[in-house]
């Protein structure tokens, strides 16, 4: 039972973090109609900025949690203004190629600036150590903190998409681009804002993950693949879909890691293949067939 409890917490921890990142991918896709291949690289950038601010600048954890994602969002604004602007009117393939080029550029820049080694960030003192939950074995406080952040962002995003005008427009845009255009949503500022918001979400994920994951130049690759699996399972452009997909992946990792470690890493792909077989557009998805 205790093992089950820990696996469940692990699943939540991984799943909610993944949700925050994947939902950013989805929002950007919704409005730009393009999958940002550099989304994982932006997540990684968030983690590296957090590392820099905490370990090199000497800032404490809490302001870093605020500043690192904002820094990445600023980078995203630059990317949008200087690069993506050129291809919004073009073929989908061109925009995919361009975000793929951004992935190469950001990955290699990170490697050049921070080196190929692994960096570690300590959690703030208050979040260090373990507590006993479910009356079972002790569980890291920081993981509980990640779950809390995930839940807060989930609530915040729910509020944004259901209770605010901006959010409703964004959601409408993700589901129906024609309507978005009718609403005049594709003005430059909105596109830039949405791209930066997506990047911000990725970077929040990165900054939150920094104290518990190894920071190395490969961390973005892993997360972008998992985000892809999440949106394919859940349905591209669907927000409930991103949550379902992320939690499903969290469960695969949480329980797969505990009960079948040999094939754990293949589980997400098997899950994705099964969804593709029976519901090609994802659990919550519609349309998009070729």
């Amino acid at each position, binding site marked *: 039972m205790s093992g089950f409890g820990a696996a469940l917490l692990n699943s939540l921890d991984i799943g909610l973090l993944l949700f925050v990142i994947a939902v950013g991918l989805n929002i950007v896709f919704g409005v730009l109609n393009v999958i940002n291949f550099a989304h994982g690289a932006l997540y990684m950038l968030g983690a590296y900025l957090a590392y820099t601010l905490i370990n090199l600048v000497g800032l404490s954890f809490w302001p870093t949690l605020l500043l690192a994602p904002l820094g990445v969002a600023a980078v995203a604004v630059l990317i949008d203004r200087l690069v993506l602007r050129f291809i919004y009117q073009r073929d989908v393939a061109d925009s*995919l190629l361009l975000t793929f080029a951004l992935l190469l550029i950001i*990955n290699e820049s990170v490697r050049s600036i921070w080196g190929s080694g692994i960096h570690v960030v300590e959690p703030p003192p208050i979040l260090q150590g373990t507590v006993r939950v479910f009356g079972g074995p002790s569980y890291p406080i920081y993981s509980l903190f990640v779950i809390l952040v995930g839940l807060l962002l989930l609530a915040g995003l729910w509020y944004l998409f259901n209770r605010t005008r901006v959010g409703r427009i964004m959601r409408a845009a993700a589901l129906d681009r024609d309507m978005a255009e009718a609403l005049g949503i594709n003005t430059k500022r909105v596109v830039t804002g949405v791209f930066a918001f997506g990047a911000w979400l990725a970077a929040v994920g990165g900054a939150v993950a920094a104290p518990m994951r190894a920071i190395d130049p490969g961390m973005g690759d892993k997360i972008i693949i998992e985000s892809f699996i999440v949106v394919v399972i859940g349905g591209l452009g669907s927000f409930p879909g991103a949550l379902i997909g992320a939690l499903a992946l969290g469960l695969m990792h949480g329980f797969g890691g505990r009960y079948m470690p040999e094939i754990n890493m293949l589980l997400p792909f098997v899950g994705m293949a099964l969804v*593709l077989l029976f519901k090609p557009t994802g659990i919550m998805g519609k349309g998009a067939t070729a």
Partner: protein
Amino acid sequence: MKQTILLGALLVALIGLVALPWFAPYFYIFIVTEILIMGLFAASFNLVFGYTGMLSFGHAAFFGVGCYATAMTLLHLKWPFLYCLVLSVGAGALLALVIGFFSVRLNEVYFAMLTLAFGMMVFSVAHHWRSVTNGSDGIAGFTLGDFGLGLDLTLGNPAVYYHVVLVFVVVAAAVLYLIGRSSFGMILQAIRQNPERVAFCGLNVRSYRLAAFTLGGAFAGLAGGLMAPFLRVASPEMLHWSTSAEPVLMSILGGTGYFLGPFVGSAMFILLETWITSITQAWMLFLGIVLALMVMFFRRGLLGTFLDWWLERK
């Protein structure tokens, strides 16, 4: 007239390639061998992208699997090289058939995502399945024996191996070219331009896409098989998405609109790589910047832009 000039230029280039070992030092033989193999890899990608319009970010899976197939049969079974290559072709095609089955059903955004994801799945299998693939160290220590067919070739000699590669690449390129010019190839190009109209002409677009994707996988497998003895190792890096980026960039660099574009792109890519990596470590950064600039300002590629201009000229 212009056709004749082009054909003549091609012939001169071919003669130069055949004669290369007699006047060029080993260093250049190695470089041109790599250019040829990677050119074939890029051309197999361009059948999928430039012809059929499917942008794959996972093409390294088929290249890598071909490389592993040849390396492992050489190591464990000591087959003649030709048979190893046949196996590589089969392995690339089979893997492409499986991955393609899941990936060609949806639109191009999905296709790009799925090919990257499945490609990385193959990478992590190679990385983690140590008992078979030897993990991150890869398969090494194999040696080339006979070629097969009773031919007596010293494959260990770089000049001989270069000629073997040249023959395989030229024949494979000719086959690819002819496929592109066939009725089947015409349908593939029609699918790139307007898949819906092709469907309403009574063709199952999905199966044509899958056929093109499988074919691309087969030729990538062949390129991978040729790569194994050249590198003397089959390692997971060859399956990584950054390897998938290479044919993408080569095709864009040379131009996706002409058959020889990927080969020209491969030559430029490898010459640049040799030059840049002697100056800086950040080769991938350079790659990314070049790719971005090409896509933004120079979408037809270098050969493509030149030929567009030259063929239009009176």
